[in-house]
């Protein structure tokens, strides 16, 4: 724990294997093996030697190891060269380095709506067919003028 800033950073060593759901309100660095989901309100770092079999629900994550599961980040997902991701990802921002192995679906659109658990792929609504009056080019102003 960093006493100067007050922020807490948990580190899972490379020799550690955890089975179950891991929850933290701070930041966490995983270098070992996790068989379960990971929920973190802070930043998550997946080390080179880490293997995660489960879903990640985090604020932001930097992946350098292997992840078999979905990743949902409120802010940013970063995949480094040695990352091996097998699952869907959803975030506001994405950065991928060359050499990454990734199989899954990506829903990252920095200029679109922020990622959420229930977000769906946005699609533009189909244009409404013109009414007869509109097609003829008549004045279609609504309100008082139309009723006259």
């Amino acid at each position, binding site marked *: 724990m960093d006493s100067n800033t007050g922020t807490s950073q948990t580190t899972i060593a490379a020799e550690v294997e955890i089975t179950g759901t891991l929850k933290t309100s701070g930041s966490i660095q995983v270098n070992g093996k996790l068989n379960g989901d990971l929920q973190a309100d802070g930043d998550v770092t997946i080390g080179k030697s880490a293997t995660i079999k489960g879903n990640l629900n985090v604020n932001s994550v930097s992946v350098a190891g292997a992840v078999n599961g979905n990743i949902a980040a409120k802010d940013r997902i970063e995949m480094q060269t040695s990352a091996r991701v097998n699952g869907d990802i959803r975030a506001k*921002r*994405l*950065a*991928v*380095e*060359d*050499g*990454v*192995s*990734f*199989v*899954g*679906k*990506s*829903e*990252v*659109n*920095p*200029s*679109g709506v922020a990622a959420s658990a229930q977000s769906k*792929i946005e699609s533009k609504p189909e244009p409404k067919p013109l009414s007869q009056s509109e097609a003829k080019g008549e004045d279609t102003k609504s309100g008082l003028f139309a009723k006259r």
Partner: protein
Amino acid sequence: MPDYGKTKVVDGFTALRAIQQGKGSKRNESNERETREPETVKPEPAARPSGRGIGRTVMPTKFEIICYKCGFEYCVTGRADYTYCPKCRERLERTDHVITGALTQNLVTVGKVHLTETASIDSATVVAREFILEGTVKSGRVEVTGMLEIGPNASYTEKLITARDLRIPAASKVTLRSHASYRNVEVMGRLKAKLRATGVITVKPGALLKGDIRGAHLVVEEGGGVFADLVIEPDKAHEAENDKGVPAQKTA
């Protein structure tokens, strides 16, 4: 008279003769030394600092050329109007062209061709190393051995154009309806496609890549968007390299 050319027997007379000959040569050397100008000792040049000069060397630009006759790939450096294929000795024109009107005649070059917005290709075959498409391809065929760049106002039929690499500039929004295969893809605008890339797919900041993407390498820069089904497997890049050099063949 005896022959004094070669001495076969060393006796007193030949020894004396050799001594006299040696004295005579030394005397001549000393005379020459006196008449020669005194040698001046040139100072050794200052030791050149290591690394100096490196970095100032300008390397000429290298161009990747694919012969449109035999398909042989090679590199040339610098600018020239033409080059000869090392394999088939075909003369390859390297001239760049800018098309501003209707093109009805065949155009074959290993340079760059720029089809402007007001230009069109009608019943003509165009072969180029690099092709910037901003106009209309009504009919004919366009074969690009290098990079194809699709502008925002381009109008074309996908099956008429084959290219090795693809670039989508920032202002362009391109939708490829048929399955496309390229070596490298660079997205700076918007691209929606069913895409297969044997090289690198690069998504620049502000760009958006949609669709079904399968490739060997993916690079997404900060600010780039990806809304797609992805299969990125660098380990299988060696299998994909078998497709190297084969332009995409799009089917209607």
